[in-house]
């Protein structure tokens, strides 16, 4: 937007607290932030263009490379979209294993997001504790799928590997340890007076603004929009009796607490999957064919949508990916940052929306 302003302070593209480069130009009046706009283009991959014309067997690996933090959900949504096009059934055991891996991925993503926030507000002790507990989750992910990121675990008609009995026992034991630590760290965050000073009533996103900016995921649910959770509409999650959690405050504090709550919710979901995991095959087979579909799933940051058109040989004719960070960063920069009382709160507010520039630019 071309405008002449009194003071325009750029934050980024390179900032010590940000995981990826983006430039937020803040129009300020003293310390008060009047508005902000964002410049992207520092890490454009053009991955949608690379995908076009390639067979699905290649594109499934490209899809999970859109984002290194939430690669499992990109894999899951892409494959479930192909299964939707060709009506490929998924064995029940495989569907539950997908949920287990997806929830582990959500846990590590949420922990990383909360680590970033604590690091940004200079609570390095809690930040490092969180990074430590994240490793336990990553270990579980690696034990089940064989890789920490870009696991390529989900394939049409099932999953790549079964969960061994001894691995399931170890997963249960580690979940108990992770739960204890997360409860302890949630208490530290919830009751920390310095954390409250930097987080409560800062970067407020009202429910109306969240709806207008199409905010999704924990960002939307922290502003009182539980219905934004796509897991509500997923058949496996419905069978598990999934109920989303939400908060009303809409500030930085609520967004971080929301993620802590969702980590505990994910642990409960994984336990429920393990309790109800039936015996049976994990790969039913099936070959994707021609068709067109718009399919959405709940990524750690919110609704992730794939719009795919394939030909009879399963090649990707056209594809468009709508990642949750697009909506959340927009909500952050055009609504949360507007009216922030101090420039020092800009990085923390930005980080509280869990921005993923790799997803945004694709």
């Amino acid at each position, binding site marked *: *937007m*071309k405008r002449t302003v009194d003071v325009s302070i*750029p934050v980024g593209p390179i900032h010590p607290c940000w995981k990826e480069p983006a*430039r937020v130009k803040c129009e300020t009046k003293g310390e008060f932030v009047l508005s902000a*706009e*964002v*410049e*992207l*283009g520092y890490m*454009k991959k053009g991955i*949608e263009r690379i995908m076009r014309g390639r067979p699905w067997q290649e594109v499934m690996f490209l899809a999970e490379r859109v984002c290194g933090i939430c690669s499992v959900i990109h894999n899951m949504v892409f494959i479930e979209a192909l299964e939707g096009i060709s009506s490929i059934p998924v064995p029940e055991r495989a569907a539950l294993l997908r949920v287990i891996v997806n929830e582990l991925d959500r846990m590590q993503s949420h922990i990383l997001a909360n680590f970033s926030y604590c690091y940004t507000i200079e609570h390095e002790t809690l930040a490092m504790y969180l990074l430590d507990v994240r490793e336990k989750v990553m270990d579980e992910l690696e034990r089940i799928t064989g890789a920490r990121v870009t696991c390529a675990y989900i394939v049409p008609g099932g999953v790549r590997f079964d969960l061994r009995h001894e691995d399931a026992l170890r997963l249960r034991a580690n979940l108990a340890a992770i739960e204890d630590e997360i409860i302890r760290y949630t208490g530290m965050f919830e009751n920390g007076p310095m954390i409250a000073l930097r987080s409560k009533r800062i970067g407020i996103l009202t429910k109306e603004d969240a*709806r*207008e*900016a*199409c905010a999704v995921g924990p960002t939307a649910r922290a502003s009182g929009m539980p219905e934004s959770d796509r897991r509500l509409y997923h058949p496996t999650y419905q069978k598990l009796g999934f109920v989303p959690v939400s908060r009303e405050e809409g500030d930085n504090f609520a967004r971080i607490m929301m993620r802590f709550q969702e980590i505990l919710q994910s642990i409960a979901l994984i336990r429920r999957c393990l309790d109800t995991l039936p015996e049976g095959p994990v790969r039913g087979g099936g070959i994707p064919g021609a068709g067109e579909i718009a399919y959405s799933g709940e990524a750690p940051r919110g609704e992730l949508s794939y*719009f795919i058109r394939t030909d009879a040989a399963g090649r990707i004719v*056209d*594809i*468009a990916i*709508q990642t949750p960070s*697009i*909506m959340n*960063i*927009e909500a952050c*920069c*055009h609504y949360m940052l507007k009216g922030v009382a101090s420039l020092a709160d800009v990085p923390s507010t930005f980080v509280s929306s869990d921005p993923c520039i790799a997803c*945004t630019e694709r």
Partner: protein
Amino acid sequence: MSGYLYEKDLTSMKYDILTSTRHDRMVREIAADIGIPQIKLRRYIMERFDMLLMENLPARYEEGKRQMAYASETERDLRAHLYSRAIPLVTEDEMDRIVTRVKELMESGMPREEAVLAGKNLFRGSILK
């Protein structure tokens, strides 16, 4: 020759965003609805919106269309919420002026369709000016 160290020309990147599958579909729909050439609408958007708002346009467009169900009949006909809040092509004040003008025309006895058409012409004029 002097130049700004950090400012760069974003035109080509903005154009790339606007010509992606879903953005292109949206631009075509809006241009057809308003009655202006697509190229002019693209230019208008590129000059006024930052890159992030542009990336988010298809989602906002779909949500804006859903929100139209809750608007009054006149606002729905003019797609007031869609074009001033969801896709901020004009400011809310400007759209309010257009809606008020259409209501005045209807109160003065002009048939509804003609008044709405006049409102759409005002809206188109404010984009093309």
